[in-house]
């Protein structure tokens, strides 16, 4: 493992050969605990993130089912889940319980599902493999990053059982609702646990982000210039940079809110409030703060966060389209610059969540312009995906189906965003179901489908076995149909005036006629959850009994397919040198329709 015989032209200046950085190869056998539980191997950690993330997906999904039940059949007892969550009322969702449901749904899905599945699972798994490194730059930090996540999970689970119930101020946790204990039942201890949970999750993410950026910058194989990296890596790296620059603000804001709650600090509490018949100041709380301060700090992180939720997914989709379409990415450099543009612009648009908030309206105009401009790099990416599909030789594998669906769904999510970006139109739209439709299209119909696609695509590498294509296609068809069945009509419902976060939207007589559509949506949602059984069975069944595969079942170019399936410790069993980008598919005159990155010439 230590001879580094490279020719001069294969080792561009500044790139260290593998093995130069710290990696210590342990040759003794590790016990079960060190191998699978407290492992420093990025692949194991990636799979740990995968399993945990999928379990949290189920939890978040159950919250969503409860929400959908209440919206379809308000104040009727909910079967199964009802007796678990609301035993006191015989399974009927309570008004305060409903606020807890959507808070936990959002929190779980964003911080415990999508970010861990995108960055935790695939960031960990793919980065060293795709750039030709034996492991991450800081393997122990990597392990700590995963295990720091667990206190976060513990805190959020404990918050369910806190006195007063789980946090109920929305995943956005706006004060004073979140900071004054008596303002909401969930703002008793539940909210404290929520803040602690977010802190742990944030630390875990930052550990990961440091690792990813360092590894990508310092540990690429010889010849792997930045512009020869697959777009998955670009997406992951830029998402990691977003994490690094934005998360500290959320952590700081969470501490400020925690101080407001526990030490009565008053960062966000104005004077003169009367909440639940008491003035917090008479109970020792400091005041003179401003609720909008939280909103600015929170959204300063949470807007880049939504790009963290989507950029890696975009990267994966690009790679899957190229591999299963046997075609180079159309416009690789524009794609890279678009990712960077989205991320960069993503730092100056946070105010579009606050157009109605009472901040200076002139500032709203600035944010509006920046937000509308951010549609541009997203549009460029969509056009380039279409360009990639044009003239391709499409293999309709499960991975490909999900990647194509991502493009289709992202178009919807992106276009609906333009209405919200337009500030005067947002006057009507803000806090209606159009917003819910928009973000579910980008995050669920978009990122989650990309995650499914990525799982189908990289499962063979992770577990050395193939997933069932039949079950995959069935999974895709049902998921696609029911996802659209759930989220598409939310656009029209929102336009009709259905408001977000309302336990009984039909309390307003004017909206009573929206109930039938909501019932159909709920049926689709129940079906959507049930349909994931096909995925679960495929996933675990294939892991145990799937047909074994070789190193490169997809005939793909990027470096991870050079390693065994699954790769062993240290990943690669030969020296790697990279000679070109990862998208040399269907090269005219080449012997095969793919040219791996390690293959010296194109023909």
């Amino acid at each position, binding site marked *: 493992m230590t001879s580094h015989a490279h020719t001069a032209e294969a080792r561009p200046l500044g790139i260290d050969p593998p093995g130069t950085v710290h990696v210590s190869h342990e040759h003794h056998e590790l016990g079960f605990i060190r191998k699978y539980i407290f492992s420093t191997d990025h692949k194991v950690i990636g799979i740990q993130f995968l399993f945990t993330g999928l379990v949290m997906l189920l939890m978040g999904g159950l919250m969503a089912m409860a929400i959908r039940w209440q919206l379809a*059949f*308000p*104040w*009727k*007892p*909910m*079967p199964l889940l009802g007796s678990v969550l*609301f035993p*006191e*009322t*015989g*399974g*009927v969702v*309570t*008004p*305060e*319980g409903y606020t807890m449901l959507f808070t936990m749904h959002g929190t779980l899905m964003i911080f415990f599902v999508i970010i861990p599945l995108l960055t935790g699972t695939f960031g960990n798994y793919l980065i060293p493999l795709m750039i030709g490194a034996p492991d991450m730059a800081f393997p122990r930090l990597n392990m700590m990053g995963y295990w720091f996540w667990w206190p976060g999970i513990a805190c959020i689970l404990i918050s369910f059982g806190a006195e*007063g119930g789980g946090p109920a101020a929305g995943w956005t946790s706006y004060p004073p609702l979140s900071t004054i204990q*008596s303002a*909401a*039942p969930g703002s008793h201890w539940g909210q404290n646990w929520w803040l602690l949970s977010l802190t742990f999750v944030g630390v875990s993410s930052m550990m990961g982000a440091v690792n990813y950026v360092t590894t990508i910058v310092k540990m690429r194989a010889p010849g792997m210039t930045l512009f020869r990296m697959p777009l998955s890596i670009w997406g992951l790296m830029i998402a990691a940079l977003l994490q690094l620059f934005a998360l500290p603000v959320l952590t700081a804001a969470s501490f400020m809110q925690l101080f407001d709650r526990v030490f009565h600090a008053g960062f966000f509490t*104005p*004077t*003169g*409030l*009367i909440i*639940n*018949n*008491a003035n917090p100041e008479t109970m020792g709380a400091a005041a003179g703060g401003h609720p909008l301060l939280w909103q600015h700090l929170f959204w300063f992180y949470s807007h880049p966060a939504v790009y963290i939720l989507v950029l890696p997914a975009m990267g994966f989709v690009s790679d899957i389209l190229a591999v299963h379409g046997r075609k180079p990415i159309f416009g690789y450099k524009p794609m890279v610059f678009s990712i960077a543009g989205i991320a960069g612009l993503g730092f100056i648009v946070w105010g579009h969540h606050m157009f109605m908030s*009472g901040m*200076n309206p002139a500032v709203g105009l600035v944010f509006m312009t920046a937000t509308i401009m951010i549609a541009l790099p997203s549009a460029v990416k969509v056009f380039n995906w279409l360009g990639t599909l044009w003239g391709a030789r499409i293999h309709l594998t499960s991975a490909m189906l999900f990647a194509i669906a991502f493009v289709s769904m992202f178009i919807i999510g992106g276009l609906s965003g333009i209405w919200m970006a337009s500030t005067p139109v947002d006057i009507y739209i803000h806090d209606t179901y159009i917003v819910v439709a928009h973000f579910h299209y980008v995050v669920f119909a978009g990122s989650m489908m990309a995650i499914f696609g990525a799982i189908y695509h990289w499962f063979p590498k992770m577990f050395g076995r193939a997933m069932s294509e*039949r*079950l995959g296609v*069935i999974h895709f068809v049902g998921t696609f149909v029911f996802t659209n069945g759930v989220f598409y009509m939310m656009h029209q419902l929102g336009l009709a005036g259905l408001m977000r976060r309302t336990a*009984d939207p*039909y*309390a*307003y*007589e004017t909206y*009573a006629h929206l109930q039938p559509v909501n019932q159909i949506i709920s*049926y689709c949602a*129940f*079906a959507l959850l*049930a*349909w994931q*059984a*096909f995925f679960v*069975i495929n996933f675990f069944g294939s892991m145990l009994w799937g047909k074994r595969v070789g190193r490169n079942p997809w005939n793909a170019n990027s470096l991870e397919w050079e390693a065994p399936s699954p790769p062993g410790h240290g990943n690669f069993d030969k020296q790697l040198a990279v000679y070109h980008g990862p998208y040399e598919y269907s090269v005219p005159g080449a012997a095969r329709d793919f040219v791996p990155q390690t293959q010296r010439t194109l023909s």
Partner: protein
Amino acid sequence: MIVRRPRTAALLAAFALSSALACKLEPDTPELHYSLNRAEIAKNEDLASDPAAQVQLEGALEFLFGTPKAPAFLALPEWLEEDPPFYPSFWGEDHVRADEAAWGRLVESNKKAYREQLEAIRTGNLERVERPRYADDLWARWEEVRGGLPEGGPDAAYSDPFSGEEGTWRQSAAAVFENYYPKLATSAEFYRQQCYHCHGASGGGDGSTSRFLEPRPRDYRRGIFKFTALKGKAHPRHEDLFHVLTEGIYTTAMPSFRRFTDAQLHGLVDYVRLLAVRGEVEGLMASDYTPETGIDFEGLKANYELVMGKWRAAKDAVITYAGPVPEITPERIEHGRTLFMTPGDKGGANCVSCHGTSGRGDGASAFEIDPVTKLQRRVKDDWGNEIQVRDLTRGVFRFGRRPIDLYRRIYAGINGTPMPEHIGFTVTEGGQPHPMSEEDIWDLAFFVRTLGVQAAHEIPHEAGGH
């Protein structure tokens, strides 16, 4: 081809089957149940230790008041013989009908709420008459009238099945909606959707949300309601309860319910009253219980009559004032201030002892030493909750802020709290003790009005407004 893959086939079949089953997912309306008032039962050791008697008590209450699904007041025969009948003329629909202004508002409100249905009746497009929400009994009536459409058409002669009056069918059809007044069962379901999560199934103020609220939702079962326009700690009138529903109770979690129709609110008042009467009868039965008498019919009847009699007497207890509000002069305000600020032992009205010298509710009597913990805490109301003496400088007056409202509040006090009745309270002025008169009450009211000059929330007006 799929049959060759049994696992896949089985999965798909399972999915199809469960979907088909799930499609009959329309759930039933859940049933609430009245529960026993544990606190009252605990006061009587004999009853608390006798589960059989408790079951009997539940049965007796069900006999009188029904279940949440089918609530009703049992009408005793002798009541019906009175003229006008004791029951139901002081309750519900008959009572509201007798008040022309209130009935007129109810009809107006029904016309607004059901304007689409009324328009459809007017134009004859009977298929377009849609079922309104929360009004199953209304729909049942409509269907009955609809079924009785005479052959001569909507404008033919028709005998109204409910009022017995002769008119046209169209008039009767419109009257179904215009004159709609909910039955108790409909109001009970409405209560379940709107009120139960705070006020509880039996009106005990113990719903799931209640433990997070300060002040707690009202426990109707004592029959005590704080905010009435009545003297002598009387039970509230129908109008008082209606007032609470339309105005809400400011700075509490009880909002204004004006978004519902007058008819729905009147129906809710009827149902709340049923819960209150039921609770009071339960309390009396619980305290009367002895193992020898058990839960007996005579005792039940006597307590029922007693409680109903108290409610009936409400209308006689209204605090009225002959004439408009007196002229507010600085002298009267000063007189009010003197009465307010002078402690009882110096011959004043003693307001300052609770409300404090600045009116902020921080007087010495606003607090007491808890006999158990020996720590100082706020005084408690009759329901055992700690309460805050009103900070009069905030402009928050939960019953209303008009002069007559303050007058009534000071006159009669607040039921269930340490705020006492002030009419007739002995004060000493110029060495002469005398009971406080109506004019004295006005002076106090005028003074208190000058205190509430701050807005309920202190926000300085910022220049520029942003």
